[in-house]
C-alpha cells in the first residue's frame, strides 16, 4: 500500500519535471539567416491618426523564456567583446545596458536590430558576423541585465566575483523613454 502510494508520487513528480521547458535546448536553428523579419519602429510618431506599424516574428518568447538561450547569450556577450564597450552592462564607451533608458528601444526586437544593424554613434553592426540565433540569445541576455526576464530564466550565478547581484535577483527596470520615445503601440514591455 505504502509502496504503491510512494511510487505514484514519484511518477507524478517525474511527469512534472518533464513539463519543464525553461531549460529545453534547441541546438538547431529553426531557420536560416534572417535579415529583417521584425518590423520595429524607433518612433511613436507616424503620419496620420494611427501609431507606427510594427510586426514581430514572435521569436521573442522562444529566446526570452528559455534559460539555456539566455545563458548562452551571457557567454557570447563576453566572447564577442560586447563587454569591451559596455562593461558587464554598466556602460563604458557604450551606454549602460542594465538601466531603464533605451536610446533605440528596449524590446528584444529593438535590441536585435541594434546588434545586427549597428547604431550611428559608435555601435558596430554585427550583421553577417554573428549568426542570427546567437544575436537573439545575446539580446535576451541584454534584457535580463535590467531584470526584465522572468526570475527562473535569467542567469542565476556568476562563475567569478561580481560587484552586483545575479541577473535573476535584479529588480525589474522596464524600459522607459531615454533618448528617444518607444513606439506607443509596444509601450513599455
Amino acid at each position, binding site marked *: 500500500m505504502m509502496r504503491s502510494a510512494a511510487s505514484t508520487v514519484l511518477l507524478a513528480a517525474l511527469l512534472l519535471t518533464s513539463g519543464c521547458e525553461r531549460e529545453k535546448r534547441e541546438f538547431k*536553428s529553426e531557420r*536560416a539567416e534572417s535579415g529583417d523579419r521584425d518590423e520595429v519602429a524607433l518612433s511613436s510618431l507616424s503620419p496620420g491618426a494611427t501609431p507606427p506599424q510594427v510586426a514581430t516574428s514572435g521569436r521573442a518568447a522562444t529566446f526570452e523564456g528559455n534559460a539555456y538561450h539566455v545563458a548562452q547569450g551571457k557567454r557570447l556577450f563576453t*566572447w564577442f567583446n560586447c563587454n569591451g564597450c559596455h562593461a558587464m552592462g554598466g556602460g563604458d564607451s557604450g551606454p549602460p545596458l542594465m538601466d531603464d533608458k533605451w536610446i533605440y528601444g528596449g524590446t528584444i526586437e529593438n535590441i536585435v536590430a541594434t546588434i545586427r544593424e549597428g547604431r550611428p554613434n559608435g555601435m558596430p553592426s554585427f550583421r553577417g558576423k554573428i*549568426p542570427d540565433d546567437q544575436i537573439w540569445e545575446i539580446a535576451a541576455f541584454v534584457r535580463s541585465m535590467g531584470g526584465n526576464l522572468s526570475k527562473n530564466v535569467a542567469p542565476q550565478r556568476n*562563475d567569478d566575483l561580481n560587484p552586483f547581484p545575479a541577473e535573476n535577483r535584479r529588480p525589474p527596470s522596464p524600459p522607459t523613454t531615454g533618448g528617444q520615445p518607444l513606439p506607443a503601440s509596444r509601450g513599455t514591455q
Partner: protein
Amino acid sequence: MSGRAGNVRFVLVVSAPLGLTACNVWQSALDAHGQSAEAVLRQFYGFTALSAGIWLLVIFAMIGALRRRRSLAERLAAPLERRSRPEAFATIAVSTAIGLTAAILIGLTTWSFMTGRTLASLRGRETLTLLVTGDQWWWQVRYEDSQANRTFTTANEIHIPVGQPVKVKLESNDVIHSFWVPSLAGKEDLIPGHQNEIYLKAERPGVYRGQCAEFCGYQHAHMSFLVVADEIPDFEAWRSRQVATAASPTGEEAAAGQRVFLSRGCSICHTVRGTPAGGKVGPDLTHVASRKTVAAGTLPLSRGSLAAWIADPQAIKPGTNMPRVALDPDELNAVVAYVAGLQ
C-alpha cells in the same frame, strides 16, 4: 531463461567487454608506452597477480577447513571437545598468516611509493612545456618557449618529442575537465581558476589517443585529442611548420574562401595567424588541415568532413559552441577549399 543456460548467458555477457579492452590499442592503460604509464602498469600487474595468488590460498584454506569439519554425530557427542594438536597448528598458521599479511602490505606500500617516485621523477627535467586549456568541448594547446617567436597555439593534437619529459600545465575556461592519455600517464583534472600539471614521457614513437575523463556537459564524449610522439627531428620539423603563419590561399576558389572566412563570422571566433582573423573563441585554425581529426576527434580529417562540419556543426556535435553559419553552396565550397588548404 532458466538454470544453466541462463548462467552461461550471464557469464558470456559479463565477460564479453573484457575482450574489447584488448582491441582498442591506441587508448589503453594496458598498452603502456610512457614512463609513467609503464610504472603504473607494472604495479597493476604485480598487485593483481599477488592478490590473485593470495585469494587462491585463502580459498584453498577454506576448502580444507570445510572438508575437515567434524560430522554432526561427533559434534553432538562432544560439543566442547578441544583437539590439542590442530589447535597448536592453527596458532602457528594464523600467526604466520598475520606476519605475512603485514609484510606483504608493507611491501606493496613501498612499491606504490616507489611508483609514485617514478611518476614524480619527471618533474623539473622537462625539455618542453605546454599549456593545455580545456573548453567545452575541445582542447587548446599552447607551446611555450622562452623565445617568443617559437611559441604558438594549436588545438586537439599534441606533438611531443619521444624520450623527452614534457610538462603539461592544465587550465580550464569553463567547467572541470580531465586530461587522460592512458597509454602515457594517469589522469589530471583541469580546474577553472587553478593550474594543475602533469608530466609525459613517451618511450616509443606513436599516436596515442587521449580523452576528457571528467563529465563536462553535452559533448563530453566527443572531447578527445591525440598525442603524437615523434622522433626529435620530426618533432622539430613539425614545430617549425606550426610556428609559421598560415599558407596564403592558392587558386581562385581558396582566395574566395578566405574572403568568406573573413567576412562571415568565422573570424570573430577563429584565429588564422597571418590574416586579420584573430578570434579567441574557437580553435586556432592556422594549420587545421595538418591535424588528423576535426572537432576534437569527432571526425577524421578530410575535405568532406570539413565541409560537413562547417555546413552544420550542430548536426554532427549537437550543442557544440560553433554555430551553424548560413552559407550558400558556393560560399561553403570556397570556404572549405580555403580551410582544407591551411596545412
